[in-house]
């Protein structure tokens, strides 16, 4: 307190301190630099070379991923010979982008089911990780927006895409993901996730890379247009109202049967119990007329 008071007193005596000019100059420089940085971020990022991005990605990788995937992303085996984390050589940037952006990676613990959760890395860090893993070996790159976006389609093109995508989806995807993309059960307690509300890019990347148990649908298997058609179909499912009434999760006979038994029969049993439990009797006696 004493020090503060003294300095305040000193400032009031010398209206212009000996260092004031220097302070003003520094402030001016800071403001100029700050404004420049704020107004031209693109140029600033361009200055960050691919090598820098890869180096940054490697740093992040060593901290966050190497425990399971190995220090050189070569994969780690447990003592029993099980895979702790698979090798990431050749999985490509698309796999990293999908796994990290949907929060699947880093996993909470090793296991075969890997549910999505809030993402742990921001966009820049994800890009760095993707660049690092992509530098390890050739693999699918992050798709361009023109690959998966259905915004550019005219109404007619879109109708055709939905029709074709629906056929492809029903042939290739419904076995696991259900006819409405609501997800389904897999062997040994695993499950295929719901596709409702998944972004176009992530659907495309999942098709391209085949995360976890999912088979790959590479560009030689389903062409980029066919993948986009599948996306168009899934998005059309999300947009259309449920014409038949409540969908009950669109899980088919399981949830519908459960609703019929529990809600339908339960309501009727409830009615019966209520009718039997409520007497219509009174303690009054009949008065003879």
């Amino acid at each position: 307190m004493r020090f503060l008071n003294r300095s305040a007193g000193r400032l009031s005596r010398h209206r212009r301190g000996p260092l004031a000019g220097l302070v003003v100059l520094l402030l001016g420089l800071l403001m100029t630099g700050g404004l420049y940085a704020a107004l031209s971020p693109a140029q600033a990022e361009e200055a960050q070379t691919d090598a820098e991005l890869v180096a940054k990605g490697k740093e992040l990788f060593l901290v966050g991923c190497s425990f399971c995937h190995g220090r050189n992303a070569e994969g780690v085996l447990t003592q029993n010979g099980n895979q702790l984390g698979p090798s990431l050589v050749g999985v490509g940037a698309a796999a990293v982008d999908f796994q990290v952006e949907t929060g699947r990676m880093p996993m909470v613990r090793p296991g075969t089911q890997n549910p999505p959760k809030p993402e742990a890395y921001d966009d820049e860090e994800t890009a760095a990780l993707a660049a690092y893993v992509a530098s390890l070996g050739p693999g699918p790159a992050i798709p361009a927006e023109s690959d998966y976006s259905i915004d550019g389609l005219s109404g007619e093109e879109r109708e055709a895409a939905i029709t074709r995508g629906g056929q492809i989806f029903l042939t290739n995807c419904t076995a696991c993901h259900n006819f409405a993309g609501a997800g389904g059960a897999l062997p040994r307690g695993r499950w295929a996730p719901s596709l409702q509300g998944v972004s176009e890019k992530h659907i495309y990347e999942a098709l391209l890379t085949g995360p976890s148990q999912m088979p790959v649908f590479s560009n030689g298997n389903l062409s980029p247009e066919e993948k986009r058609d599948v996306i168009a179909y899934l998005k059309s499912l999300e947009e259309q109202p449920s014409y038949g009434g409540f969908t009950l999760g669109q899980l088919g006979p399981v949830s519908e049967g459960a609703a019929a038994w529990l809600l339908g029969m339960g309501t009727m049993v409830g009615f019966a119990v209520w009718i039997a439990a409520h007497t219509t009797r009174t303690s009054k006696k009949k008065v003879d007329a």
Partner: protein
Amino acid sequence: MSEHTSDNLPVGPSGEEEPIANPGLPEHTWRPTDVDAKAEKRAERQVAFFFALSAICAVLFVVAYFSLDVGDNWDTFLGLGASNLALGTSLGGALLFIGIGVIQWARKLMGDHEIVEMRHPARSSDEDREGTLAALAAGLEESGISRRPLVRNSLLGSLAMLGLPAIVVLRDLGPLPGDVYDDEEYEGAGLERTVWKKGMRVVRDVIGTPIKPSEVEIGDLINCEPAILFETDEEGEPLLHGVEVQIAKSKGAVILVRMEPGDITHGEGRENWAVDGIVAYSKICTHVGCPISLYEQSTHHVLCPCHQSTFDLADSARVVFGPAARALPQLALEVDEEGYLVAQDDFNEPVGPSYWERDSE
């Protein structure tokens, strides 16, 4: 119904004295509607009100049927199809309100005697039994069925002949099993064969394009069909028609996957059935014939969703779990001169579920 005393209780059984005096039924208690004329009126109006509500719901059903759009231009309500919702709600209401009205009627207004019914033996009385037998005998005697064997036998004969039309019509349900499994009617007919044959291209289902091994990556799953399904003649007409298409499609469907060649355990004599780790198996489960493509690339297992039969595609589609008795038939693959994947031959065993005449070797 037994007689009732003035307090609405039934008259107890009379006669012999019982060792413990019959305590009888507890005193009858009345309902408000029995003792209060106003309550009775009110209950009457209540019941009528529910019946009226039901009638209104029925009218609303008709209104909803004609006013709400379906088809190309659906009316929606809270993201649900308005028509279905309104039809279901109004029809449900119409039935429910009749039910509520009837129950209220029965509880509050209908006669409310307590009834005692004594137990009787299930056997009819001797007089009844004798009377019935006498009537039956008289009928038989009057019809003269025992005296006129010509009439009786010709009736029995005509009834027996009525079975013939039934048998002939039942034949339309389908060919006899013997005809099915060695039918020569068209290509790939019968239970033992499919349309696959040497050199037929394996093409993507729905899309119909042939596949080069270089297009397939490790972990890929492609649902495939025989190329003949998509082929056309000179005039652009499909080669297969009608029921032949359905039969060819249902028996010929295969799943094609690629895995690390080192992961594959080849079956005996099947060492050259894979192309660079690409293998193809029938998509039809050997249990009851469901189409299966629930493939896990991490384990190479394919699961049938109907009864959880699981097949290991890395090991000749051996059954690793579930009720299926046989492995999925494998389609031997090779590459034609243009570099596309083709079948070496038809499956070497019948696809799909077992049947009596199947040679299970």
